[in-house]
């Protein structure tokens, strides 16, 4: 047992940190919040050049075929600077879905372009429901000759406005709450009948409500088996949840560093507030959670890369990382006192994201139900040691 990073991994981490520090400043993040796209093509291209967009893709599609552990390492660095980019939806979700479920033709059509930074994909999954379970999906896809016709509404589709392709999960048969009967479609974002409007969020990131009205999708854009989306999508979401936990881990790390630094600098009652036990207790409690969350994230990523069944571990990873990012950004802001709640303060960028990230990609209800199921209902569960 040895949980240190390899030399290559240290290089990945350090390279990413340097790039983020130079390019992804607080000022940049604010600019992106106000921008049309929510990210810059320039940075997306740079990310491609550094090989980040091809990290996960298979080698025969121009990728590096690296594991989840490496994705987590990179995601942590992106998270430290809350990098606004469609990395998760394009590389980790859509890219992974195509690699797992796509036909050879689809893999060759889409993956090399993702690797090269020529294609941005958004994940259109959530609908007008509080739940994250696939079974609640209602958006209809009806067969019509050599096309499917999509009707319905997706919500919280991040980067839909700046995406080339939408990965849409739609119902081709059955009805809620069945998770069977769902199918994935790669829908051209410019298709007729698609209407997107941006939804203002507390993170001021780029979420859209996307309406589909008689949107015709050719059959060769069906991804994976008809009615069988969940058999590959579940694993994709699991992987995304782990990588996203790495990302929020980076958010925590940075917020905590800044709060600690502030506590060392800010003098009240003739001493730095970081010399007071109550402040120390906050910071120590948070860092213990952050270390625990980080180790659990890597543990799950490692076992996922080994091809082991990690369902309960993913759920625990995501649930704990979610709580930790919410806590750390909340308490971290509090360390700053009044200034922690002023718009111009960079740490408010983190505070505005903490709660939202906790709710993202399946809230606690979703993941805790999985944990309970695995803990209670599964006979003789396999335990990783």
């Amino acid at each position, binding site marked *: *047992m*040895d*949980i*240190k*990073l*390899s030399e290559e*991994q240290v290089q990945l981490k350090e390279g990413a940190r340097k790039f983020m520090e130079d390019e992804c400043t607080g000022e940049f993040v604010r600019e992106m919040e106000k921008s049309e796209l929510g990210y810059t093509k320039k940075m997306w291209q740079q990310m491609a050049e550094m090989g980040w967009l091809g990290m996960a893709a298979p080698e025969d599609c121009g990728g590096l075929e690296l594991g989840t*552990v490496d994705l987590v390492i990179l995601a942590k660095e992106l998270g430290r600077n809350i990098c606004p980019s469609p990395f998760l939806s394009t590389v980790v979700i859509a890219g992974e879905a195509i690699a797992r479920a796509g036909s050879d033709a689809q893999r060759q059509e889409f993956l090399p372009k993702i690797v090269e930074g020529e294609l941005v994909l958004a994940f259109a999954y959530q609908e007008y429901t509080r739940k994250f379970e696939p079974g609640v999906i209602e958006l209809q896809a009806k067969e019509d000759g050599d096309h499917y016709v999509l009707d319905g509404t997706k919500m919280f589709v991040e980067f839909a406005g700046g995406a080339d392709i939408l990965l849409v999960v739609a119902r081709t048969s059955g009805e809620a709450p069945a998770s069977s009967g769902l199918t994935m479609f790669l829908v051209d974002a410019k298709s007729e009948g698609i209407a997107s409007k941006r939804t203002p969020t507390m993170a001021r990131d780029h979420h859209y409500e996307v309406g589909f009205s008689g949107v015709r999708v050719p059959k060769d854009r069906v991804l994976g088996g008809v009615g069988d989306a969940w058999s590959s999508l579940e694993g994709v979401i699991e992987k995304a949840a782990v990588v996203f936990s790495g990302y929020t881990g980076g958010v925590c790390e940075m917020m905590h560093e800044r709060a*600690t630094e502030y*506590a*060392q*600098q800010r*003098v009240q009652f*003739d*001493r*730095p507030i*970081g*010399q*007071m*036990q109550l402040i*120390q*207790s906050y*910071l*120590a*409690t948070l*860092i*213990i*959670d952050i*270390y*625990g*969350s980080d*180790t*659990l994230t*890597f*543990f799950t990523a*490692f*076992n996922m890369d*080994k091809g082991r069944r990690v369902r*309960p*571990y993913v*759920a*625990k990873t995501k*649930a*704990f990382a979610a709580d930790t990012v919410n806590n750390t950004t909340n308490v971290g802001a509090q360390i700053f006192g009044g200034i922690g709640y002023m718009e111009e303060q960079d740490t408010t960028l983190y505070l505005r994201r903490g709660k939202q990230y906790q709710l993202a990609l399946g809230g606690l*209800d979703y993941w*805790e*139900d999985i*944990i*309970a199921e695995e*803990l*209670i209902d599964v006979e003789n569960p396999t335990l990783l*040691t």
Partner: protein
Amino acid sequence: MDFDWSPEELAFRDEVREFIAENLTEEVAGTIFIDTPARVAFVDKMAERGWLGMGFPEKYGGSKKPIPLAQFILTVELDLAGAPIVGKNVGVVANTILNECSEEMKMEFLPKIFKNEGQWALTYTEACAGTDIGAMQCPAVDMGDHFEVTGSKLFITSAHFAKYHWIALRTDPDAPKHKGISIFIMDADSPGISLTPMHCIGTTGTTHRTNEVFLDHVKIPKSRLVGELNKGFYYMMQALDYERFAILSFASRVRRFGKIVDWVKNAEYNGNDRPIEDPVIRRKLARMATRVEVGTMLERLCICAAMERVPAVEAAMNKAYGATVGADMAELALDIMGPFGYLWAGAEHAPLNGYLVDEHLMAGHARVAAAGVDTAKSIVARRLLGLPNALGKPVLPAK
């Protein structure tokens, strides 16, 4: 990065598990202490296998460490099974003797420890010196050819079955308080020592006993000084880093949570009330399962660090997190039990025979023992985050 145990580590773990399966009788299980003949016999068998002196030089009765993590795996497996563990004798006493004592003392005491000949009490705490252990006053006065001790010590857990006291005493009343303490090895049967038992809160019959120790003109030979005079505080601190890790593994909480989940799964009350079907209870268990997993991860961090150094910060994190989770899970269990959570051991209908009641009442004890949760957090704040000592003079930031 490799989270997997090596084949050698797994083989050793299996060996320990087999040993436990063969030797852990009902008479032995239930406490980490080696306080009865049956428990002594159990540990004797471990000693025969060379498991107490792993990694110590052979000339002192030590044995080759089969693998670097052997000590850790042994402790975790024992703790997981609810068996007596050897952390204190080996982790604190033997390590300090090896690092700080004369050849003569090493030859005298190390082989005894590794053969399980006699138990040790850590005799530090006084009424005026708990968390602030440096405030201890009980003096050892230099009488020329020996030291003489008169005073008292509090919460000395193993004193009623120990053969030796690993005792910290004030040897220089005029020095700054951390610089006037020394450690001695004192025979428990020395004339002038008397004990008053103190019983921890809990169900009658299974309560954990500790002691107040009175010392009346007790003589300690000069040869029993550990290391250098007035360096005792530093030896204690070093050993505490080790103790937090070696004695208190997270495994006991994993075991406790397993028992709780098993109980909830099978419980059924009037009106078809099966707690396991209650969605709120399921969520609460899920949340606790997550925290248990995180505790296991913090322990992992500790193990990995331990391969290279004494994992002081990691052990403090492990301690703070583990003790809090331990307390919260006992409380969660009682919440689920409702009024049946009132019932003590022996009561009809007491879930798990009142086990969680004792665990709940004593949960706070785990939070304060071996430098408590708050002390552990102070260690994290200072050593990991680099924040200034809250008890020191103001440390103003450089302009």
